[in-house]
């Protein structure tokens, strides 16, 4: 039997954008066990809910994550709106959907770039990020912020997108989709990429379900679970079908994200086509008294905001379960059996967002 050694991986590692530490137990080059540890960037944002007014906290909630920021704001706002019984105007629901899908686009393109970088395909990394830049420019034109949009608030949205800009976005979608399909073609059909990813980090459907995986990680294993199906914001009106792959390996998880990019473009197109005229927000009167589990689908999976108000202007408790926390048990199951050189690719395949996880 080969001698076992423990190799520390992270928290600072070239492929990791954020700090997670893994103790890899190796037999020669083969991973046999892995012990993850997090806790490097806890910021105490949940506690802050007791010190900020419930309408102000939405800006803090947005800063939980630097990539799926808008979805955190939507999740938090939806929770407070539900507790207070506020009905969000239709146009605000559609605008939230458009910005959410733009966020998903830029998050997935960012991930595709990092993933390509992780497997050593530098050219594809730069190409993905170049495409992402045009999404960020659109976000900046419509909201004022590239990654922190700051346009979602309790009771609606803060800004409108003019009809002219909506038309411009609609026109830009076709050439953008063509470029994305060119890019996706390389991810899905290139022999080098296939050779690197197929059969790596396999998780079966039952295992993924039992471990409570969410998002593209679960859908790559054939679990057709996407919270957008429940129809929050305007997803109920514009229709939604989850993207599912069945292989359960790194290639399947990559394919889910590539196809979700196409799906997001389609969602934005339909949302722009159907967006109604009307007010942007409703007046928020009174204070929240009650509790609610607000669930939103982020690029990485389902995020849960548990909010409890006690009738004062400060909420008494917020608890946020982010998708990466749910996907770390999957990672522990995926890694044994992989080579040491494949570890970065497998770790990236769950799209870890540690700042979210530790809040």
């Amino acid at each position: 039997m080969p001698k076992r050694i423990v190799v520390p991986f992270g928290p600072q590692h070239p492929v990791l954008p954020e700090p997670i530490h893994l103790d890899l137990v190796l037999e020669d080059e083969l991973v046999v066990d892995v012990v993850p540890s997090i806790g490097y960037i806890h910021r105490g944002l949940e506690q802050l809910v007791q010190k900020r007014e419930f309408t102000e906290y939405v800006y803090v909630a947005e800063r939980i994550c630097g990539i799926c920021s808008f979805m955190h704001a939507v999740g938090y706002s939806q929770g407070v709106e539900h507790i207070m019984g506020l009905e969000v105007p239709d146009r605000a629901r559609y605008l939230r959907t458009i910005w959410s899908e733009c966020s998903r686009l830029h998050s997935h393109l960012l991930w595709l770039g990092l993933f390509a970088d992780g497997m050593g395909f530098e050219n594809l990394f730069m190409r993905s990020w170049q495409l992402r830049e045009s999404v960020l420019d659109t976000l900046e034109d419509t909201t004022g912020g590239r990654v922190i949009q700051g346009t979602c608030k309790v009771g609606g949205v803060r800004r409108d997108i003019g009809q002219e800009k909506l038309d411009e976005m609609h026109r830009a979608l076709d050439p953008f989709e063509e470029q994305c399909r060119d890019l996706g073609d390389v991810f899905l059909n290139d022999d080098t990429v296939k050779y690197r990813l197929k059969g790596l980090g396999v998780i079966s459907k039952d295992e993924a379900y039992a471990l409570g995986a969410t998002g593209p990680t679960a859908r790559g294993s054939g679990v057709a679970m996407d919270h957008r199906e429940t129809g929050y914001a305007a997803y109920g009106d514009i229709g939604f079908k989850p993207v599912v792959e069945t292989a359960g390996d790194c290639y399947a998880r990559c394919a889910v994200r590539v196809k979700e990019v196409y799906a997001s473009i389609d969602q934005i197109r339909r949302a722009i086509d159907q967006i109604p005229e009307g007010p942007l927000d409703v007046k928020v009167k009174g204070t929240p008294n009650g509790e609610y589990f607000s669930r939103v689908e982020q690029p990485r999976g389902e995020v849960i905001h548990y909010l409890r108000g006690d009738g004062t202007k400060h909420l008494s408790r917020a608890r946020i379960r982010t998708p990466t926390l749910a996907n770390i048990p999957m990672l522990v199951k995926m890694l044994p059996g992989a080579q040491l050189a494949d570890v970065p690719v497998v770790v990236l395949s769950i799209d870890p967002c540690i700042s979210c996880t530790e809040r």
Partner: protein
Amino acid sequence: MGFFAMTKTVLRNLAEGPATRQYPLVPARTSALTRGHIAFDPATCRSCGLCSRRCPCEAIRLDKEEKVWEINRMRCIACSDCVEGCPFGSITMERDYLPPVVELVVERHTITYVKPEKPEKKPKEESAGESA
């Protein structure tokens, strides 16, 4: 996938040049809505304190006695909530980002607003214009 699939990209990149820009020399791209930093006008501030109460990160401090308005630029997250909340339009959002700094700077402004003396008989339109 066919042969030379990336060649199209390579040729396009050769023709179009780099996608990035030489940042400090070429200014960053901004839009009309870009939230760069907030600017304060001490001549119109009436010390109501709404901005400091609304600020989610406690970056703004107002001393009504001393007539001092302070902003901690390192705390400010440029959420623009104070801009929306200011009833007198004293705070505005500027498009450009502030240059990086290496030490904590608290910007101090002395409020120069002077309450106009109440005329004995004021026409109605003027008073409505002033209070807006």
